């Protein structure tokens, strides 16, 4: 494909928390962006353009917040983009920003994604009364629980798989200082005994509500080479892909969506991956409810259809497994909705740069970042590597 190589030269995130009362929305994004710039050893003046992503504006009730955030992001007088793709937006935003470099338009691009859930009511926002429809849903859980039930039925997976996923992710989060949840007392039984919120989803199998932001600095090949020469190894983008599909479609598979598989196939093709399970070293994927780990293992072609849950049960997705998944603790431990996709993408890049600290996968060279959104209808993925593509 005729495009420039893109390097990831700076990564930064906030400490994620239920309420970041110490910072405004502008302070939150600035915290992540400042850290990414410091990591890239750049200043605000070095940045050519800024790309901002967050979940729908009605979550916080601030319309087009990118406009008032321009100051805090050093974007005044520079091109400023906003990306909207519901829950997958953090991933899509990173992809859009990377494409400004891939297309040769800019040399250094900053991207930031965020959510300040403490200033919003996402549960309400996702359950808004729509004219002429019964007000029945109870947040995202009420929508996705039937999909999970359908997966359990078709795969015949045992009931404890969801608990195992939640336990793994919550324990991984203890190794990540930026994670929102650090529940040291979590055990298999404590998850099992937690209240069944949206049967079959237990309280401890759901994501929290977080304030947080993640930022990435992209550079051209020249910028990446310079960073490498100074001993700051970049991550290189090997492929990016986005897909979407209509939610209200008669033949739609809500459990293993067609769009998700096509997105995976496309990104693997770009990265030269023919056997994802063997070739990918680790993955950060969007798992807001525990059962989405086995579902996405199948949808992202890591497991045969119906067998995704066996990867969880066998420990393949654990930090010391053959395909570690959500080493950071995942969305189950940290969920600033708009940022959640970019955290997945950014954590994948941290792995191949060897900067993931205690949750580092030894020798990770090729990693997948994944996000989905809406009613399982928007998909974004990238493959990043320690070597140039």
């Amino acid at each position: 494909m005729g495009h420039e190589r893109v390097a990831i030269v700076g990564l930064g995130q906030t400490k994620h928390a239920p309420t970041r009362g110490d910072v405004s929305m502008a302070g939150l994004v600035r915290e992540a962006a400042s850290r990414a710039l410091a990591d890239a050893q750049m200043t605000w003046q070095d940045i050519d353009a800024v790309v901002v992503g967050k979940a729908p504006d009605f979550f916080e009730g601030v319309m087009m917040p990118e406009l008032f955030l321009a100051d805090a992001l050093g974007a005044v007088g520079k091109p400023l983009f906003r990306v909207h793709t519901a829950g997958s937006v953090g991933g899509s935003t990173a992809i859009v920003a990377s494409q400004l470099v891939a297309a040769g338009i800019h040399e250094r691009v900053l991207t930031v994604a965020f959510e300040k859930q403490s200033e919003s009511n996402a549960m309400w926002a996702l359950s808004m009364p729509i004219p002429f429809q019964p007000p029945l849903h109870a947040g995202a859980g009420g929508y996705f629980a039937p999909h999970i039930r359908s997966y359990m039925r078709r795969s015949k997976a045992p009931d404890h798989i969801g608990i195992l996923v939640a336990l793994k992710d919550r324990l991984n989060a203890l190794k990540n200082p930026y994670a929102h949840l650090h529940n040291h007392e979590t055990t298999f039984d404590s998850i099992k005994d937690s209240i069944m919120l949206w049967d079959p989803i237990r309280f401890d199998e759901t994501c929290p509500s977080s304030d947080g932001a993640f930022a990435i600095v992209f550079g051209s090949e020249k910028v990446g080479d310079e960073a490498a020469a100074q001993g700051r190894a970049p991550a290189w983008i090997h492929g990016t892909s986005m897909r979407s599909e209509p939610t209200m479609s008669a033949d739609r598979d809500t459990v293993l969506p067609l769009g998700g598989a096509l997105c995976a196939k496309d990104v693997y093709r770009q990265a030269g991956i023919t056997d994802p399970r063997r070739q990918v070293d680790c993955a950060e994927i969007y798992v807001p409810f525990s059962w989405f780990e086995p579902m996405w293992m199948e949808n992202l072609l890591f497991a045969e259809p119906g067998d995704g849950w066996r990867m969880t049960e066998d420990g393949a997705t654990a930090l010391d497994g053959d395909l570690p998944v959500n080493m950071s603790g995942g969305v189950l431990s940290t969920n600033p909705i708009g940022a959640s996709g970019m955290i997945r993408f950014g954590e994948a890049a941290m792995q191949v740069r060897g900067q993931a600290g205690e949750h580092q996968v030894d020798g990770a060279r090729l990693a997948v970042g994944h996000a989905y959104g809406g009613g399982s209808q928007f998909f974004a993925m990238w493959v990043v590597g320690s070597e140039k593509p």
Partner: protein
Amino acid sequence: MTEILLPARLQDVEAVRSVRTPASIQYSYTPGQASSRYLKGIAQRKIIGARVEPGAKVYVPPRGADPQLGKPTTEQVEVGDRGTLVSFCVVNVSFHGGTQEIPYTTGNILLDGSDQPIMHLIQECPVDQVRIGMRLEAVWVDDADLGPTMESIRWFRPLDEPDLDVHIPGEDRPLWLDSEEFNQ
């Protein structure tokens, strides 16, 4: 910087960290032709879906187009007010604006003659007896209360009929395996 000193009477008061500012908006909603036909049917205890042509998928509620064929759904098709449960959720959490007593069940219900499940409330059945494949019927409000709104159906309740085998698209074989784009 000048130090800011609170008056003595305020020094022990808990700091304000946030304020709630409820907002509301009044607006008119125009449902469009497809939804209007559907809602007018509901007001007469009829559930009217739509399709592109005979043999095409029947959409309930109709949105004016078939997303797979990319064509307008110009043909009206009345479907049943009975259906089969294809999946469900037992809700144990109350939420802002919700009026149901918990626990309650919401179901994805495939009405007889329709190809697209709708979500609605299931009542008159203990939550632990709800199951995929069970047959359900709509419970309508009294004639005097009928209107062009889904609230004209109070909920669905079990029918005294044997369960049906339900099939969710992709259940036996993921759709992508047969997709042209995937196999390129």
